Each structure stands twice: as C-alpha cells, then as structure tokens.
C-alpha cells in the first residue's frame, strides 16, 4: 500500500511529457507503432519519437478527420497508429470519423489526446474539452484511459500498444505533481492509494493529486478514507469500486470533466446496481470553461481540494 503522507508535489512534470517519453519507448520496442500528428508535434512532445523513427511518423497537417481515417487504414494493414492532437480536436471534432472508421470497424487505433480539460488554461473554453470521456466511453469497444501524472501517462502510452482494440488516451498540458509508483499502471485496474472505512474517493486524471491532498486533510480530521485512482474509465474496475463502497457506504468522485457522462456517472451506474450509496460529484456542472490559470479555473469551477473535502463530508452526512 502506498503511504499517501509520503507523497509530495516536489517533483512535477506534465502528463504530456510522460506521453512523449512513453511514445519514444514504445516506438523503440514495437516496429509497428506509427505516430501521426495534426500539426502539434511540440505540444504532444513527439520529438523524441520522430527523431528515433522519422520513417514511422506522418505529419497530417491541420486535418484531424483525415488523420483518423488514415489511422484506420494503417490499423487494418497491421500497423499500430498513435493519432495525436489536442483532446478537443481528437474527439468532438471527429466523432463520426472515429465512430464509423475506427470503433464500428474495430480498428486498432490509439487516439492520444493532450490539453484536455480546464487545466489547458489561458486558451479558454474553445479548447478546454470537458465532454470527451463521455463521448469516448459511449463508443462500443473503446478503452478510455485518463492518467493522473506523467509516470502513469508514460506507462499507459507503452501499455496500449499491446492492447488489441481502439483506445482513447487522455492527458493534459500543465506541469503537475508526479507521484505514482513505477510499474503501477495496468489497463482496467484501479490503484488503491489509501485504505479506509468511512468514505470512498475515486479520482481520475489531474484531480487525483487533489484527491490525495484532500484525503490527507480528511485523515487528519479523523475521517477514514478509502482512496482509489481510476485511470481507466472504460472498462471500469467494478470490483474495486464495489468492494470499496460496500465497505464505506458513501462515495466521492473527482474528475476534470462534465458531471454528465464522466467517471462519476460510470461509478453511479455500478453502485446503483450492486451497492447503492450516497455519491457526491466533484466535476464541472453543465458549464463551459474560460481563460485563466489552471489552479484558478479548477477553483472557480468547483474542482479544488476544498471541494473534495466538503463533498466527502457531505457524503458522510448523507450516509447518516
């Protein structure tokens, strides 16, 4: 078990940096891996992969629909394409292309999407997609992964090459605390960060660090927290969720995404079937974002450490 009190924000790195490192490694390991990008090489940290394997990189230009189709064509020929761009352009902009040419056609395409969520910051709501997890998890057969730090993103970028099927890998822009233990990522397997009996907290993506900080504070107040990182939104680790909620009887979910369609909804589906319990959502509530600093935006839209603490207390109270 991880000792959350030993985890600090001293070491920081952007999840997209983790992706770039993972892509380079998987590119070296697997000659079938092909990188595609829609004019965002630097933002997606693809330079190392391209330097290693220029013949396996395809610059598509600002044409994401075409990129998804090309990726499907490469995949049906036995390649493992990593189609890389910002999360907004990797999902909503090309949803029909993904649905028909990739998901319905069972193509082994890895959609790697950076700059997801509010923490994109100053670029504002046009780019801050908060609906992507919901869209992607609704597509039959898709695996949806939202890593929480650079280490986990790196491991996920490597692991998805060996997974046969389409994957949506979602990560972000800002420098962020790095805390997951090396070798801890496994597709579909939640990671327990603290064992407790009063309240379950399930967090994904950047919000995992805030969930750790909130848990530390709650524990200091004498509240026993069962804390899990749910990096794989689909397939969901139902066993981990059911075991935890059966024990605690109340839940908080935390994610940088709309409340509608996100991790919280997925958790609610599971517990409503197996172990009904009060659930509090820490998520964006039916709103677009805006320009600002990542921490300012998370605070304004109800995604702070304090929001998680307050939600945990509310869930506990509702449990009675």
């Amino acid at each position: 078990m991880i000792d959350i009190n030993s985890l600090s924000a001293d070491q920081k790195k952007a999840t997209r940096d983790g992706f770039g490192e993972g892509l380079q490694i998987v590119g070296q390991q697997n000659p079938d891996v092909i990188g595609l990008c829609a004019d965002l090489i630097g933002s997606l940290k693809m330079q190392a992969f391209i330097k290693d394997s220029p013949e396996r990189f395809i610059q598509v230009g600002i044409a994401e629909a075409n990129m998804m189709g090309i990726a499907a064509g490469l995949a049906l020929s036995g390649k493992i394409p990593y189609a890389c761009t910002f999360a907004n352009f990797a999902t909503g902009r090309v949803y029909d292309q993904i649905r028909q040419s990739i998901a319905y056609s069972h193509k082994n395409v890895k959609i790697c999407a950076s700059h997801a969520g509010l923490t994109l910051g100053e670029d504002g709501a046009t780019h801050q997609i908060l609906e992507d997890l919901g869209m992607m998890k609704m597509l039959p057969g898709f695996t949806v992964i939202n890593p929480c730090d650079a280490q986990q993103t790196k491991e996920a970028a490597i692991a998805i090459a060996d997974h046969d099927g389409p994957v949506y890998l979602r990560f972000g822009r800002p420098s962020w605390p790095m805390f997951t233990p090396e070798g801890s990522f496994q597709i579909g397997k939640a990671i327990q960060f603290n064992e407790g009996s009063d309240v379950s907290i399930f967090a994904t993506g950047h919000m995992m660090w805030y969930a750790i900080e909130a848990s530390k504070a709650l524990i200091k107040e004498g509240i026993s927290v069962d804390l899990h990182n749910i990096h794989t939104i689909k397939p969901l680790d139902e066993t981990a969720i059911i075991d935890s909620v059966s024990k605690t009887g109340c839940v908080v979910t935390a994610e940088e995404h709309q409340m509608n369609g996100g991790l919280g909804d997925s958790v609610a589906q599971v517990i409503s079937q197996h172990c009904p319990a009060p659930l509090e959502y820490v998520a964006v509530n039916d709103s677009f974002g805006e320009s600002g600093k990542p921490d300012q935006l998370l605070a304004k839209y109800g995604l702070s450490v304090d929001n998680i603490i307050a939600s945990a207390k509310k869930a506990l109270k509702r449990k009675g």
Partner: protein
Amino acid sequence: MADIDNLNAIATQVRRDILRQTHACQSGHPGGSLGCADFLVALYFEIMKHDPAFQMKGEHEDMFFLSNGHISPVWYSVLARANYFPVAELSTFRRLNSRLQGHPATHEGLPGIRVASGSLGQGMSVAIGAALAKKMNGDDRLVYVLTGDGELQEGQVWEAAMFAPHHKVDNLIVTVDWNGQQIDGSNEDVLSLGDLEGKWKTFGWTVLHMDGNDISDIIRVMAEAKAQTGQGKPICILMKTEMGYGVDFMMGTHAWHGKAPNDEQLANALSQLEETKGDY
C-alpha cells in the same frame, strides 16, 4: 486480353442482383449501384489482383475501398460473384441478422470489406492509410477507392486530397462516380462541384477521364492509370456514369437514388436484363 463479352454478361447479372436485392427488402440504393456495376465488375474480374480467401491486411494484393457505401448492393453482388461469399447470401441484404448490412460493415465479418462506410467522405482517408502501409511494407500492389460525386461536398475529402500529393501517395487510384446526381437533385442544383478536373489538378493529382458504363473504356483507362502509378502523384479518375444505367426508366433522373422498385417495376427492369450467370 480481356473477355469483354463475359465481363458485360457478369455486369448484366450484377444489375439483376442489385434490383432483386433492393426489391426484396424494399429499401437500398439501386440508382448509383446500377451506374457503377460495369466499373466494379471490371475492377474485380479484370483489373485488380485480389484473393477471395479474404485477409484483412491485404498483403501483396490490390485493395479496394468503397467510400460511397450506400451503393452496397453492387459491391455485395460483385463480391459474391467473385466468390467472396455465397451468392445465395444476397437474399439477406438489409435483413435482420445479415452480414449484408444496409451500408458495408466489418462488424458482421463479411469477407471483402475492410472498413465501414456510409457516412460519407471517409473512404479516401482510410485508403490513404492502407496505401501508406503498403509503402512502409515494400508492397507494390495498389489501393483503389471509389467515391461518389455528391460526396465530394464533404470537407474531409479535400483534407485527403491535399494530403495524398504532399506525401506522394502514388500507389493510390481514386475514382469519382460522376453521375451528376444526388438525393435532392443534380449536383449542379444542390451544390455545384464547379471545375472538378481543375480542382483535383490544382491539388496535385494526375487526372484521367473514363466512361464508366463502357467496360472497354474502363479497362483502357485503368491500365493507363496503373501505368502512371509510382511517379510521385496520386491518380484521380473522373468516371462519367449514368445513374440507373441498364434500366430505361431508372436513367436520366435522381429519383432512383434511394428508392426500391415495386413488383411491377422489378419485372419491367428484369425484362431488360438477361439472366446470364444464374439468379441467386
């Protein structure tokens, strides 16, 4: 030397199959299917190197992608007649539990199909991906794709059209079914395609013209297209066809784009098309 008479005979049978498929389920798209029968017959029975013992990757064989997936009846018929699956299965077209979905799909495992199509504008991109993979693998076979003309109104087509010349995808032959018609009327009325030849040329493609309802011309132009592959440019063939070709009352109108014949119309249509290879 191609046996043109035999290819024409197959195309006539394919036309019967198209009419009978759409009549049986009272849905589907006979017009464009009839117009493209000669092209697809020439492609599968003369032009392409392909193996009905279908393998998805298409290694060391030519690959075909149908972007305008709504003309599935012609593709299904040609695939069946080329031994990809039993011709009897054509009777299941658009029915529950069939592999012959309304629009082509891989989901049910129908041999010959490599990607779903129907939502328009996507086939060229997929074909480019397959063509790039062939180049990476040192496979010198070609990738063919058929697209509709109305379909060219989709923006993704022009993303692909810009990409292929830039990346010298010269193992790709795109054919446009230029019948001038779409659901709501003529291309000219709905949204003019303008100078189609000029558009492709300025995007950097080698452009050829073909009569898509003349098998001899198809074979001649496709040979010319093949000869021009490997020279740094993708190839686009503007193929003039007539929607509904082979059935007099279905020609010269867009009315049969997505309408099935009734009993009387089927009988009339079939009387114009000899049963050359045996109905399913």
